[in-house]
């Protein structure tokens, strides 16, 4: 029997490209691929220790619990989960989301929750309904790398406010707002991940949280609080969310099940003041009508059973050990002059190398040693972050984390040694003090 014709993509010829080039919307100009992004393709190979992702560890989710849930759906809800659902999300999930938020100290009515297809869609929708091209948007510096393409695709004018170990510098925020006001301008909203920030790993202090909410009220500016990691606290005291401090007047809250259950289910949410919520729902309707009813049904039942906190506790135990392994390995292997955050929760450590190191170059060298991370420039719109990097510890086992950090440290030390030789600047403590793990230097 003749084989079926091979599947094929449409063929593009060079002259077609020119024709298409004239068709693209202006906003696609900022949507560019880059050599650096292409380079990350190697991280898909199994031998590469990738500290570049933001992946939760889904390997410990009990398969029998998954099977039981799917079995229940098969027996009781096939017609329902194969059907469209309401744009706002199914009631069961919205109730459970209110319950999860209550566990973080927030009082929310399930009717105020809009379910989104992952937290990423929540960011997209909020930006879509609030930002006109050229509008000002303020965010952390560094900020969540995945938010930047969203902000850029709506042609926002992004201003990033420096963070320190206590999160966004509110004094700098106030100064920026004053400078903007002097020019007759104001931001549409302030986007922040205040708790276990991605990528910084830092947490906004209570004092700054209070002040940020006050600023929002005084200036009538929206704050978009993105909180994917709040429940993943490994130590220290839980701080109130901006949403709970504000009560939901000026704070729009974005949540997700990606880090406490599954990123594959694609369930996130928005809680916003009613007029904004209504626009978000209209925006979502235009985007995808509704989030998958199958995964909503799965997640709704899973949370209704009430044992989700046990699973989160398991994750906390696993991630805490991995964080400890990472920061411990950094202390041992990273070169003199490197600094890094020690997050009390979340998934990321942010490390800053001595100034002479460019982490994009370091990544190229690290990839030859089969280890990857995200270069710091990915977290800025303005080219900052050249000597910084984001490292993920949640998706990799401890022995691989330690080995990965060792190799990055080795690559960085080799670069610094070379630079020192060329410039005779003393970047390393003393050559005699160095152990010689890499034979090629002896």
């Amino acid at each position, binding site marked *: 029997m003749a084989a079926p014709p091979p599947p094929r993509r449409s063929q593009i*010829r060079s002259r077609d490209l020119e024709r298409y080039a004239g068709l693209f919307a202006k906003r696609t100009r900022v949507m*560019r691929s880059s050599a650096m992004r*292409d*380079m990350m393709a190697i991280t898909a190979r199994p031998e590469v220790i990738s500290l570049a992702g933001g992946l939760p560890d889904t390997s410990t989710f009990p398969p029998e619990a998954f099977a039981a849930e799917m079995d229940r759906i098969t027996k009781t809800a096939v017609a329902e989960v194969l059907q469209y659902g309401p744009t706002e999300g199914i009631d069961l999930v919205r109730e459970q989301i209110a319950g999860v938020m209550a566990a973080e100290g927030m009082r929310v009515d399930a009717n105020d929750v809009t379910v989104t297809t992952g937290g990423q869609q929540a960011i997209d929708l909020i930006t879509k309904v609030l930002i006109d091209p050229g509008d000002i948007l303020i965010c952390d510096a560094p900020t969540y790398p995945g938010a930047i393409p969203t902000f850029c695709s709506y042609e926002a004018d992004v201003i990033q406010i420096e963070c320190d170990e206590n999160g966004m510098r509110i004094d700098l925020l106030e100064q920026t707002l004053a400078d903007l006001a002097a020019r007759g301008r104001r931001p549409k909203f302030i986007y922040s991940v205040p708790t276990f920030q991605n990528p910084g790993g830092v947490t906004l202090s209570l004092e700054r949280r209070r002040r940020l909410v006050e600023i929002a009220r005084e200036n009538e500016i929206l704050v978009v609080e993105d909180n994917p990691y709040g429940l993943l606290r490994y130590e220290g005291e839980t701080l109130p969310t901006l949403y709970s401090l504000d009560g939901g007047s000026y704070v729009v809250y974005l949540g997700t099940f990606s880090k406490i259950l599954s990123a594959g289910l694609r369930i996130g949410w928005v809680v916003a003041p009613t007029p904004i919520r209504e626009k978000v729902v209209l925006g979502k309707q235009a985007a995808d009508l509704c989030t998958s009813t199958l995964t909503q049904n799965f997640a709704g039942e899973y949370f209704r059973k009430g044992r989700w906190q046990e699973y989160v506790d398991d994750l906390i135990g696993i991630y805490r050990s991995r964080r400890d392994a990472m920061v411990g390995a950094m202390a041992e292997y990273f070169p003199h002059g490197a600094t890094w955050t020690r997050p009390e929760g979340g998934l990321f450590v942010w490390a800053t190398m001595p100034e*002479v190191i460019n982490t994009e170059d370091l990544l*190229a060298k690290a990839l030859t040693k089969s280890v990857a991370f995200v270069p710091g420039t990915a977290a800025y719109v303005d080219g900052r972050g050249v000597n910084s990097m984001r490292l993920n510890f949640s998706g990799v086992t401890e022995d691989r984390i330690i080995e990965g950090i060792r190799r990055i440290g080795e690559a960085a030390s080799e670069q610094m040694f070379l630079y020192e*030789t060329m*410039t005779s600047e003393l970047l390393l403590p003393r050559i005699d003090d160095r152990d010689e793990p890499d034979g090629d230097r002896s």
Partner: protein
Amino acid sequence: MKVALLQGGRSLERSVSLRSGGRVAEALLELEHEVEAMDLGPDLVSRLGSFAPDVAFIALHGIEGEDGTVQALLELLDIPHTGPGVAACQRCMDKSLAKYVFREQGIPTPAWVTYSEASIRDFGAASTFSRAVGAVGLPLVAKPASGGSSLGIKVVTSEDAIPAALMTALSYDDRALLESWVSGRELAVSVLGDEVLPIVEAIPTGSNAYDFAARYEIGGAEFVCPADLPEETGAEVEQIALRAHEALGCSGFSRVDLILGEQGPQVLEVNAIPGLTETSLLPQAAEAAGVGFNELIEKILGLTC
């Protein structure tokens, strides 16, 4: 024919290779060949053994795929393959070696010096940077000896910027070139068999002439094929490109990158296995010569070594 399609690999150009491979696979299937796509990995030799291909189509770019590593293995296994043989691959992959060959054979190429990480680290080569600037002039381009994209390339306008630029270049390879910056028109000449295809000109769209990264991005440069050149100049460019292709021992196909400055055409490098996506320069040039993509792939398949 049974064709083993080698794609992916471990180089920094993995993603381009996967795109080349995907496009080549479609063409091979349409041409009714039996195709098995293989990534480089521990099972490569055993997969080649059990598939027993008539020919290996190499759609790999960068280290290991374009530097002779895979070619040597295929030659040992008696599997004919597309693209040049081991020695030509090594000469193309190593921009410094290629330039030494050009110089020997009187093929014009910009002035350069080569530094190895070892000579800087262990033999005090950093004290020779002013000599290098004297030989090459400013501005100059620091680039890794291997590598096919903009990665690791920096333009240097003053001597004290050399250490940082070399540290960048040496992150991508253990040897780097400091090459004279020649301003001029950027041309790519593809060779297929013993035929020169129409010349492609890359015209950067950005304002910053030194911004290499931008021009390698989609939309960073505009490509014109055939390039608008006076007949005599075009002929000279083609002749020099063909000489460069032959000097390095290339066979089957290659892409010669040149710069056309005040001093006439100068060869920058030769790509042993140029990109094979629809938008790559070799397929564009072939199309301008009336050779469609499938026909191009069939021709390459007939030019194995």
